């Protein structure tokens, strides 16, 4: 149990909007181990970013309601939901850090890169400015920025997109956090740079033995770096498992659709791609039953009235879907979706 870094239990987040209260996160449980890379995957609006911001304590306070009953976010035994703003500010950066999608807007354009890194070191540690600068230089070298000494004195506009994201990572890691949350870190970058940044995050995680939470809408980018994946839909986790389980033996039709909708380089040209129709449900009035029912081609009557309970498949995999009930109509459902055996591994 000592290995467990973060434990989230029954996280509930809602927002007040003009049309009513939107339940962005509806009872999310998960944990993160030391040195583990966990991916949270889902479409925009599924609550993945809200979940990570809730851990960071970064949600705007008057509009947001975070349920506190029977819920907690435990960081090594400390419940983050009960901390006040000052305490939370100490935790941010020192224990948990976050990098965002857009490296263009996350950096202060009027401050030198070196200063921005050393500032966060200086804020959290009791060291001199000179020492903080040294740490900053080390950080730039750590994230493989060439000519780090020169780069220290440059401004963000002199950095390209990929370099800025590296600088962001350097800032995030400057205080040696236990957890790094990366929210769509490569979405704004080109494919060639994407691969570089993903490799960097993965390497650093091993070097520093951090826990990493990778938030993304693209299952493809996490295949090589993550250990476990949880798939979110409409504010809930619909499936979770190890990378191999999710990729080779998905149990939820949504996961299945996410995997199938990506064209393979080896597939035929202009073949109709497997695609999801429609859009995710409105979380102001979440539908009764399974939230995915309106887009699920295997939907049954039961799916529209009763929410499926999570079912486990082995030690690590869990999915919430009625298809796995013994009475379910499984004609025409792809075999990989309903097989119970461990068929993955090709």
């Amino acid at each position: 149990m000592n290995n467990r870094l973060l434990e989230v239990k029954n996280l509930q987040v809602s927002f007040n909007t003009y049309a009513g209260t939107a339940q962005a996160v509806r009872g999310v449980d998960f944990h993160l181990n030391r040195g583990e890379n966990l991916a949270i995957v889902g479409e925009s609006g599924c609550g993945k970013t809200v979940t990570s911001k809730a851990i960071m304590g970064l949600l705007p306070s008057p509009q947001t309601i975070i349920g506190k009953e029977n819920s907690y976010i435990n960081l090594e035994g400390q419940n983050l939901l009960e901390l006040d703003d000052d305490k939370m500010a100490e935790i941010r950066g020192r224990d948990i850090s976050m990098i965002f999608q857009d490296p263009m807007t996350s950096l202060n354009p009027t401050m030198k890169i070196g200063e921005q890194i050393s500032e966060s070191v200086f804020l959290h540690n009791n060291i001199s400015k000179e020492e903080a600068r040294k740490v900053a230089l080390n950080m730039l070298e750590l994230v493989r920025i060439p000519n780090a000494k020169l780069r220290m004195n440059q401004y963000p506009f002199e950095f390209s997109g990929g370099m800025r994201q590296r600088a962001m990572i350097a800032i995030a890691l400057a205080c040696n956090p236990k957890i790094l949350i990366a929210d769509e870190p490569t979405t704004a970058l080109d494919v060639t740079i994407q691969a570089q940044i993903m490799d960097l995050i993965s390497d650093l995680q091993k070097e520093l033995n951090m826990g990493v939470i990778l938030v993304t809408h693209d299952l493809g980018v996490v295949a090589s770096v993550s250990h476990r994946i949880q798939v979110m839909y409409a504010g809930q986790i619909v499936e979770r498992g190890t990378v191999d389980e999710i990729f080779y033996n998905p149990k939820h039709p949504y996961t299945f659709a996410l995997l199938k909708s990506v064209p393979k380089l080896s597939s035929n040209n202009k073949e109709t791609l497997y695609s999801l129709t429609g859009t995710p449900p409105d979380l102001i009035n979440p539908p009764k039953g399974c939230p995915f029912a309106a887009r699920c081609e295997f939907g049954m009557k039961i799916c529209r009235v009763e929410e499926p309970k999570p079912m486990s498949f082995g030690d690590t995999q869990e999915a919430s879907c009625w298809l796995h009930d013994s009475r379910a109509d499984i004609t025409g459902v792809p075999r990989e979706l309903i097989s119970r055996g461990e068929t993955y591994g090709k």
Partner: protein
Amino acid sequence: MESKEVLIEVKNLKKYFKVGRKQVLKAVDNVSFNIYKGETLGLVGESGCGKTTCGKTIMGLYDATDGEVIYEGENIHSFNTQEKREFTKKAQIIFQDPYSSLNPRMTVGDIIGEGIDIHHIYKGANRKKERQEKIFELLDTVGLNKEHTSRFPHEFSGGQRQRIGIARALAINPNFIVCDEPISALDVSIQAQVVNLLIELQRERGLTYLFIAHDLSMIKHISDRVGVMYLGGLVEFTTSDELYRNPLHPYTQALLSAIPVPDPEEERVKKRIPIDGEIPSPINPPPGCKFASRCSLAIDKCKEKMPEFKEISHEHFVACHLVK
């Protein structure tokens, strides 16, 4: 393949932008290719390689600095204002950003009907009704329903907005559509929706696409032929199967290897071809091969002399000194 009819011929197209007083940004530098009727031509490259500028110059949104774009025998860059207006009925564009491409103050119906209004497509007493029916039909084509006509863009999701953009382009029945990264701002799960729709429309209406993207896997899926652009010029141009099976240019090879594969085992064994650094500035590009500064195979010759863009095998063009 049956006989291919050329719809658009791009000849030595150049598009330069003035930057400051003296400097010139060569966004598109001497690009030539043909687009066949009914095909999808893919243009792929990193951001800043000039692919979007190239697409917009081909459809006449930008004036060319030099070179010709010949559409059915006529150079569109020598058109006068009236001819240009007529040409917009034939060539349309779908934009990348579904948020900034729809006017927030207009209803979906008015957005889709804009082309109909501009060109006065329907004349006579029934024109209002005909316009309305056409809009309903278009909404249905892109998978939305009638009730959406009076709604405003901000009420829709990204994928829905992109489909509204497609309906707007289709309203005046164009033959040729430039798809400028139509899926790169969308969630992966929604991308398939839009791509399927585009392929279906092409089958039904015989449309010709110029499909621009930075994602090689989607380009490969949708295109018949693909051009790989780097810093304003084409480095490789061939059919999409050939490009995937037999990539010759080191840049194409690197691009292909950088694509994340949704398969953990394949990813674990895959060796990426490293591609250092990032695309250099197109202002004052280095002499010689533009890719030389990032190419792991570069020899001295690459830094001195620009490689010729030559046909290596049937319909396979490459610009690289190392490819013989």
